[in-house]
């Protein structure tokens, strides 16, 4: 580890590795610090991605793909279901391999990566650079960076250290539990969603196939609606009722921010990306491709800022503005839909499922399901149409 870098990135998930790669490819020196012992581990993710979302950032390696998704099924509380066939190709990834490979690509671009490296604090120098206090291999050292990129996940500690309030309201977090279930009888090319207040209040249950009779089965419970029970208790009940014979090969827990992004994504010499910036689709909880899109934007802007010798908030705002104009804009629409759907009752879920009974999957559009869901809230219909255009 050297004493100074142009860009120091905290966190080795998809956001951090992508930002690192794009910054390095644009000609600046980059160091990436990962707190844990291994990039990609532990996985805290349902691992679903869209083909177009990933392909905007990187070519897809077949080794990442556990299952290819072409169909969706939505289950109502009484297990009526609605089938949807999508033109969009989706995958369930092996995040462990994917994250590892993203870091390998960053390393090949010249990024210096360190695992078991924790940021303990930082101070500003007189010339506006940042002295970052890093604990690495049981020894503290100071590393100077012109720009720090915080990609440190849901805890978002780096932004907090910089005085930015990142703490989530209870209604804006999903508390999640998931198992990798073995020996389950499922359609290997279909993702299933179960919607019910009793199974996962304010969230949903997902079944994401992973090939070879396996699936990620998990759920999210809204932080404001858990009624004193933990996500793991809800998941155990769901599995006992719906997949009583499944093996549980992996058990994981985590949280998903379901809000709009932080109002400030950059400060002087600091950029925030990924879960740390709450850059997650608040309706689906999907955050991989948006974290990578933000990483790409931030990495390119950081390199340009360093070449220009200007690391001010004003200069770095190119990233903030680009995000807010593109994905951020869509996510504000998704957030309004999520706030409506979060409060829907089992009776309302049943009504929607009933309305689509008997229809062929090719005739059911996701956009029409959501338009039905918000029919009593006309102001949201425009949002549903805009964000699901083409689905």
């Amino acid at each position, binding site marked *: 580890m050297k004493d100074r870098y142009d860009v120091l990135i905290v966190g080795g998930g998809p956001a951090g590795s992508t930002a690192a790669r794009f910054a390095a490819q644009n000609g600046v020196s980059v160091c990436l610090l990962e707190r844990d012992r291994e990039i990609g581990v532990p996985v805290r993710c349902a691992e679903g991605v869209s083909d177009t979302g990933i392909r905007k950032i990187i070519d897809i390696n077949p080794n990442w793909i556990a299952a290819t998704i072409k169909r969706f099924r939505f289950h109502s509380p009484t297990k009526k279901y609605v089938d949807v066939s999508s033109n969009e190709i989706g995958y369930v990834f092996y995040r462990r391999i994917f994250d590892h490979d993203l870091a390998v690509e960053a390393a090949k671009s010249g990024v210096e990566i360190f695992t078991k490296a924790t940021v303990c604090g930082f101070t500003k120098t007189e010339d506006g650079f940042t002295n970052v206090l890093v604990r690495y291999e049981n020894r503290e050292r100071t590393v100077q960076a012109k720009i720090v990129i915080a990609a440190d996940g849901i805890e978002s500690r780096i932004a907090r250290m910089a005085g930015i309030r990142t703490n989530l309201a209870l209604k804006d977090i999903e508390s999640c539990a998931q198992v990798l279930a073995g020996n389950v009888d499922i359609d290997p090319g279909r993702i299933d969603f179960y919607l019910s207040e009793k199974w996962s209040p304010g969230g949903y249950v997902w079944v994401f196939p992973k090939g070879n009779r396996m699936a990620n089965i998990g759920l999210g419970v809204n932080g404001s609606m858990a009624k004193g029970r933990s996500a*793991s208790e809800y998941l155990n009940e769901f599995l006992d009722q719906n997949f009583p014979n499944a093996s549980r090969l992996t058990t994981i827990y985590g949280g998903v921010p379901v809000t709009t992004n932080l109002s400030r994504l950059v400060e002087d010499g600091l950029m925030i990306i990924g879960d740390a910036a709450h850059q997650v689709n608040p309706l689906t909880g999907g955050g991989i491709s948006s974290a990578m899109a933000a990483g790409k934007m931030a990495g390119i802007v950081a390199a340009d800022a360093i070449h220009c010798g200007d690391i001010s908030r004003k200069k770095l705002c190119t990233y903030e503005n680009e995000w807010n104009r593109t994905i951020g804009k869509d996510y504000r629409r998704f957030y309004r839909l999520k706030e409506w759907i979060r409060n829907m009752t089992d009776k309302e879920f049943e009504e929607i499922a009933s309305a689509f009974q008997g229809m062929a999957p090719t005739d059911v559009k996701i956009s029409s399901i959501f338009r039905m869901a918000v029919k009593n809230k006309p102001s949201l219909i425009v949002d549903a149409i805009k964000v699901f255009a083409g689905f």
Partner: protein
Amino acid sequence: MIRINREICDLCGVCVSVCPEDCLELTETYLRTDNNICIGCRFCIKVCPVGALSEVEESDERPL
């Protein structure tokens, strides 16, 4: 103050993300609380996916 059941805490960090006072801190292998600044809002207890957090009158944590 907040008690952490270390037998079941999975070190996932959800509690950290909702704490309004930044009194929880996670390392790779340890979750730390600063009960001097905890305001007793119980948000962390409500979002813990495994129910590893609870509120107690005084710290009954054993020393490390």
